[in-house]
């Protein structure tokens, strides 16, 4: 049986998007969606539409910026890229996520041993 597809944890979509842009550089919405699907090996159930309000939110916060460019198949598309403060935010959020996941791991380890 295929493993159940997980919902995107609240608040993590921002981190995922920021990390994606950090790794791949400027990317359009479709590219980000494809990348997320690839990395998660389809384990993440993502309505791709939800990506757009999230992108807008990140842009409003100044963590990413957008400008129009030409996509691989020669179409006009909006490219998103990480800003300086976005990079900082990514570092901070990644650190806090690591702390949290380490904590969760230790907690769950204890549960398994008991």
């Amino acid at each position, binding site marked *: 049986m295929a493993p159940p597809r997980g919902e995107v944890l609240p608040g993590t979509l921002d981190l995922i998007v920021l990390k994606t842009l950090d790794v791949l550089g400027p990317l359009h919405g*479709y590219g980000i969606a494809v990348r997320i699907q690839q990395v998660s090996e389809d384990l993440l159930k993502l309505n*791709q539409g939800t990506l757009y309000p999230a992108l807008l939110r990140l842009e*409003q*916060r100044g963590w990413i910026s957008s400008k129009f460019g030409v996509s691989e198949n020669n*179409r*006009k598309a*909006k490219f998103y890229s990480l800003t300086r403060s976005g990079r900082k935010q990514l570092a901070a959020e990644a650190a806090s996520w690591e702390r949290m996941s380490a904590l969760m791991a230790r907690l769950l380890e204890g549960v398994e041993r008991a």
Partner: protein
Amino acid sequence: MSWLGMIAARLGGFFRSKRSEEELDAELRAHIEALAQKNIARGMSTEEARYAARREFGGLEQTKENYRDQRSLPFLETLLQDARYGIRMLAKTPALSAVIVAILALGIGCGTALYSLIDACLFHTAEQTYPTVQRWEAVRAYLPGQKRFVNYLSVPEIREVKELTELFEDVGAIHGDSFTLGYGEFPERILGTHVTANAITMTHVKPILGRTFRGDEDRPGGAAVVVLSYELWQRKFSRDPNICGQVIRLNSNPYTIIGVMPAHYGLWGGELWMPLQLNWSDSNRADRQNWIVAVLREGVSEQQANARLQTLSKQLEQQYSTTLPEYHDWNLSAWNIEDLVLGGVRPAFFVLAGAVGLLLLVVCANVAILLLARATSRMREIALRAVLGAGRSRILRQMLTESLLLSFAGGAFGIVIAKVCLPLLIHLIPHLWLTTEPELIQVNHAALGVACGIAGVTGVLFGLAPALQVGRQNFAETIREGGMKVSGERGGRSMRSILVVAEIALSLVVVAGAALMAQSYRRMENIDLGFRPEHVLSFQLGLPDTKYAGASQIASFFDRTVRAIEALPGAESAGVASGRPLGDRTSDLLSRDFTIEGRTAGDARGPENAIFRIVSPGYFGSMGVRLVQGRTFSEQDGANAPRTAVINEAMARQYWPAGDAIGQRIRLGAQYGRREAFATFSPDDIPLTIVGVVSDVKQIRQIDAPVRAELYVPLDQQTNPPRIMSAVVKSRLEPTDLTAAIRGAIATIDAEQPIYDVDTMDQLVADSFGPKRLTLFLLLFLAAVVLVLASVGLYATLAYSVSQRRKEIGIRMAVGAQARDIRRLVVSQGTLLALGGVAVGLAGSLALTRLMQSLLYNLSASDPLTLLCVAMTLVGVALLASYVPARRAMSVDPMSALRSE
């Protein structure tokens, strides 16, 4: 990024929405297209690929909606939608909406303009500039024998007050003076004040240029230096920054300018200050030439100061009253500078402020009535929206938006009205009665805020009231009944009735105030002035002591002046006097003690005292003073002729009730009053014979003040004639047409001699009505506005009631009611409301108008006739306001009224 930046971004999104909407659409479409391409590449059919792509993407419209919510402020969007809808709804009843906005604007605008004026004159005259102004005092003496205050005191008395260091931070002396300033094109008369050096420093106000006086400058023989007011510096010296050190000539003497005070520092009066070179060792107690000014210590109340000053008065009385009879029972007291400036106008302003408050209340009641009527008539629409699924909060918000729109429009127009009204009001008021400079009177933003706030809150409260009932309603019922009978209606009607009654009551109070003022004014206008002001021009002349040293020079100047003026074509006669009727304040009036030959000198109250006026023979005729008995002065009362005097009727009645005043002899004693009128003071002991009795001429600037005993003496017989005299000219022409000719005539005698305070006596009479006329004018204005508002309120209520009762009226007519029955139905409803309002209002008036008793001349504040007239006026207006709706009720066509249901 802060939340503020977020909001900014969202606001940006809100305003850019159209363009970014297209962009979003393109972006999302591209995304779905790409997904579909991928699916086709995997081998799906085009149809299938599209479908799968949509599924993968999620709801397109939902995404857009989420995106939009994220992009802008959904609240703002609904608000705009509400506002657009609100404007449409308001436009559906344009007359009603316009009336509500107009009432709000009128109330806010007029109220604010009036209040700004009152506030500028009453509350903020000086505080802004001088932090310690509440503690600035003048010290004056009350002489019970003369029933008046004396402001000028002697050096020993000043010293004694100065020793009360536990009361006062500092004590100084001042006196006003006037100078001829020889600078610029023509000589100008300038008012100035002689001050001890500390009189300026104790106010803690620093000069903006140079310095104020040093301790060595206010001693006899000190330097001739002068400090300018900002206004004089601006007007005459074009704000020259290097003015200090420059020498100007005042009364032909050189003075060095050493400083300039900040703008609006008009303290102690005048446009310039020079050191009062006081000889502190002077011991002559009868030589009273200066005001005492002081700053109270912090924490010392005026009562404490007065108690201590009273003790001092008693000590001095015990010590000196045998030689100085004026010390008998006298009493020194502190007089706050603000009282000094505002004393006369304060009650008027309080009454006006109260009336403005009432106006605002009437406005609120009116708006409430109209909003309630408007909202109840919309019950059906509200119910329909509720049934169709609008949430209660959504409906509330809609009603709120509409109310706010009305309030906002009212406020906006109100601001415009306030801005337009205020300069008009200032223009209409004689500047003499403004206790502040006109340019300092600005629309008071706090008052504007309060007025808008009150009006806004009323709008919101009464706009919401009907919407709040929505939750409790049976909508289906409401809709079926065609919105004609709603469960809130009974409550709404009684609420409106209460508001109408309250409104009529409030209006009655304001109208009663105005009517009392008008009645009192009418009585004042009929006061016998004792002279004929028509066609009389008057002006002042002040001779510098440098040029006119002796009595003969002064007398000859005035004599030549009178002759020169009388020679002008158009001039009938002329004369001079040491003061003009209605021209002075009580404290500035000259008065003299006197004794009557053959009677004991004075009584327990101190010596006899009468107002004292030095006149030329032509004065009585030119001024139109009536001769009652004997004769007035003529050429025969010259310097070497036997001394003579003329008295007024009040004096004759008081001292010679049998009518035998003529031929009696009196001797003059100490003199009081305006200092600068006399070069020096020296009592003389030659008795005067009374040769005539004349009518009682109003003496002081306050027209309703009683006339005191007055004594006239001829100018030619004075050893120390005053240098400042008022000239009066009886003219055959329009009196002001003579001004230029008079200036020319005087220039031929002395080209350097300015004339000033040129007024017609009619003008002086009008000015003496000043604060009362102003109050009357403003109150009448308020009363008119309030009356209009009250009738609008009553009209709206009745008109609304008629429209609600159309069906009932139709039935009544169908079963045989006549048109006049219907009219009676409506009019009696209106009359009932009016009578209720009038009853409450009369009670309120009796309570409130008592507060304005001090403004009324010879009239009780509860004058029954006036109040009856006011009540009848209101009932009359109410009947008029009922008549129009009654007409409409009469014209109801029973068939159509019944069919429309």
